[in-house]
C-alpha cells in the first residue's frame, strides 16, 4: 500500500523538470509525446505505489502543480491486529 499520493494539476505544469530531479524515489518523469494545454510535456507519476508522500516535489515546484497526501501512521494496536 502506497505511503503517499500526489495529485497533479496537469495544466499548471511547465515541464521544467525540477520535481523530477528531487523525487527521492524517482517516480516522476515528463510525459513522452503528450502535451498539456500550455504546450508543455506535463509531469507524470510512473509508480504511484512507491510514493512516500514526502512532498519534496511540491516543495520545489514553481507552479504549484502538486497536492500531496500521506498515509497516517497506524496506531500501534491496530498495526498489531492487522
Amino acid at each position, binding site marked *: 500500500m502506497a505511503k503517499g499520493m500526489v495529485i497533479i494539476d496537469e495544466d499548471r505544469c511547465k515541464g521544467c523538470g525540477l520535481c523530477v530531479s528531487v523525487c527521492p524515489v524517482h517516480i516522476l518523469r515528463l510525459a513522452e509525446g503528450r502535451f498539456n494545454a500550455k504546450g508543455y510535456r506535463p509531469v507524470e507519476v510512473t509508480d504511484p505505489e512507491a510514493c512516500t508522500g514526502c512532498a519534496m516535489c511540491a516543495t520545489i515546484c514553481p507552479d*504549484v502543480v*502538486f497536492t500531496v497526501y500521506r498515509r*497516517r501512521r497506524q496506531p500501534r494496536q491496530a498495526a498489531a491486529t492487522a
Partner: protein
Amino acid sequence: MATVEIPEDMELVYKYPESLTERHTHYCPGCTHGIIHRLIAEVIDELGVRERTIGIAPVGCSVLAYYYFNMDFAEAAHGRAPAMATGIKRVSPGKVVFTYQGDGDLAAIGTAEIIHAANRGELITTIFVNNAIYGMTGGQMAPTTLPGQVTTSSPMGRDVETAGWPIRMAELIATLPGAAYVTRQAVFDVPGIRRTKKAIKLAFQTQLAGLGFSMVEVLSTCNTNWHMGPVEALEWAKQHMVDYYPLGDTKVIDEVKALAKGRK
C-alpha cells in the same frame, strides 16, 4: 482537474495556498520566482494575516506579482517599492506590508529607497530576489552579477575593473541600525527552500512584533537569461553564487532571536 478518490487514512500534507490566486504565472519554466511566491503565500496563510496584508510589486519579471497573490497589492515605480511601502504602512499601521523586489530593482535603481527605508527602521518586510541579472529586459548585467559572468551587456564577462564588484545587499543593509532581521537564503534545493520559508516567516513575525525593518535576500536563478536548463541553473547557482554571497543571517537583534526561540 479530474476528481480523485482519497483513501480515508491519507492526510493532506501539501495543498494550494489560499494566499495565491488560481492564475497561471507568466514566468519561464523552472523560474524560482514561482517558488518564492509560493513560500510567501504559505507563510501568510500560516500567520493568518492574508486579509490585512498589502504587497508592493516591483518592476522586473515579477511586475505582475499582483495577479498571483490573493491579497491587496500596489505596483511601484522601478525601485520605489520601499518608499511606497513606507507610506502605506505609516498610514495603516495595522496592515502587514511587504515589498517583493529583484536585484535590478533593489540594488540598482532603487538603492537609495531600500537603504533609507531600512535605516529608518520602517516596519515593513522586503523579499529581495537576487538572480544576478536583469531578467525582464533581456539579461543585462546587474550590480549583483558575478565577476566574469556573461550577460548581454557584459559579453566578455563582468569586468570588475570597469563595472565594480557585485554588491552584497544583505551585509550592507545589516549595518543600518533600523534593520532588525536581515538574512540571505537560497532556493537551490529542497532543504534551502525550507530554510528560506522559515526566514520569510521570521521576517514577517519581526514586522508583526514591531521590531524594525526585515529583509530576506533570496539567491535565485534566471535560467532563461543564464542560457541554461532549469535544473542546470540550480546547480550552477549552488556552485558559483554561494561563494560570493554567503548564506545565513547578517543581522538578528536580540528581540528577533527571542521571537525565533519562542516560536518552536
